[in-house]
């Protein structure tokens, strides 16, 4: 890597606000078929900032500040709050959809926050009970599992999983060369320049999203 790009990275790093980061995490979370790493410190910081801004707004109102200024502040709070809520909501919906899969896959389970893990556990109990009461209690003995079709099945073959080979739209942040985008065995590397937009299979670019070199849109 050239020495110049290090400084560029540093500059983008300090000019990137938490609002940008939150927006990015929110977008990635919305577009990715599977659940991504919970941005614990980012969420924490954003919540602190929201609180701080709310206090500022109260102060401004008390001081009889120009209503326009106040409403601008308020709008900013509204936006951040929306992003935060929508981010957490999207994750909740993914947990609801793939709870059994997430729970039995260790590297996915650790991506959840402590509260999310608690939520997932309770959701699983609810769902399991519901499936048992509705279907499984009426099934014959060897067919009562909610994870397996029957006792003969070696693996859990009834757990919904996210479709990792779904296509996603992504944008490169910096140049990425020789990307293996096709797993058909054919040599078909792809050069991506900063700002390029591609529709690719999620599976093939998964590591790049996790390391923050690619953004989903």
């Amino acid at each position, binding site marked *: 890597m050239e020495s110049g790009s290090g400084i560029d990275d540093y500059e983008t790093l300090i000019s990137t606000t938490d609002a940008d980061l939150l927006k990015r995490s929110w977008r990635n979370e919305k577009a990715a078929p599977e659940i991504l790493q919970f941005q614990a410190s980012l969420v924490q910081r954003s919540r602190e900032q929201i609180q701080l801004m709310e206090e500022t707004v109260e102060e401004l109102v008390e001081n009889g500040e120009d209503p326009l200024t106040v409403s601008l502040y308020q*709008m900013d709070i509204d*936006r951040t709050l929306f992003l*935060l809520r929508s981010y957490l909501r999207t994750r909740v919906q993914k947990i*609801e959809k793939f709870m059994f899969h997430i729970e039995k896959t260790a590297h996915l389970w650790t991506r959840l926050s402590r509260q999310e893990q608690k*939520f997932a556990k309770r959701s699983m109990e609810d769902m399991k*009970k519901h*499936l048992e009461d509705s*279907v499984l209690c009426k099934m*014959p003995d060897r067919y009562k599992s909610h994870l397996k079709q029957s006792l003969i099945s070696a693996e859990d073959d009834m757990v919904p999983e996210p479709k990792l080979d779904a296509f996603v739209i992504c944008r490169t942040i910096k140049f990425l060369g020789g990307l293996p985008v096709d797993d058909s065995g054919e040599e078909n590397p792809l050069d991506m320049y900063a700002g390029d937009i591609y529709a690719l299979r999620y599976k093939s670019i998964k590591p790049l999203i996790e390391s923050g070199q690619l953004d989903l849109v």
Partner: protein
Amino acid sequence: MRRRFPQFYAHVDKVFDEMPVWVVTVVKELKDYWNSKMYGRKASQLLKELVSGDSGQLTGFNNDLFKQVIEECDESVHHCQALLRKMQEEGTSNQTNKNPDHYGALVHHLSLVRNKRCLMAYVYNRAEVVQNLGWTFKAKLPDAIKMKLSSEEQKYFTNHYATLQSYMKDLDLDLAVDMLPPKDPYIKVRVLEEIGYVSLGDQVGNLTMHAILFLKRTVAEDYILQGKMEELTN
């Protein structure tokens, strides 16, 4: 089909016409028998019901059909066990000797597993819709929707809603508000007074009373301030 192969169908009709009446009756009976007895037919009907509705919408829980599929499962396991028992008595191992009974038992096992998959898919997919009801209706479901749920599904809704609430309490943040991005450039409004033809920015629209419209926020805001419109929020 008929129009594309007129000659073929004319021939078929002729064959049917010339057939003795009893043959036609038997064919029909066989067809009915096939339709009602074929393993897995009912379960697939159950799923067809699920996918034919709009996504996110529920139809009434089909207790009747559901029960019939369960009965079919019982029947399958009954047949399956009978065959296995017969094989044990005859001393034929299902590993070495692939005899007809082995495959008979296998067919029953497979049809049972398929029925189970269908039943689970039916319940699970409905449960996913039930999960989402909490966002729109909060704890109290309208009667119209309640009627469509089975008693288990109602229980599940209550349980899952409580789980979601406890998660939000842990977070100390209500996630059920702010469902739409704030300050959307366009908003949904209801016209409260007869306004008539007016310019709406780039186009002219007829604003009649009670009309519900999607307008640019900047355009609508004036009317809202005058009390001639109200913003509709969900």
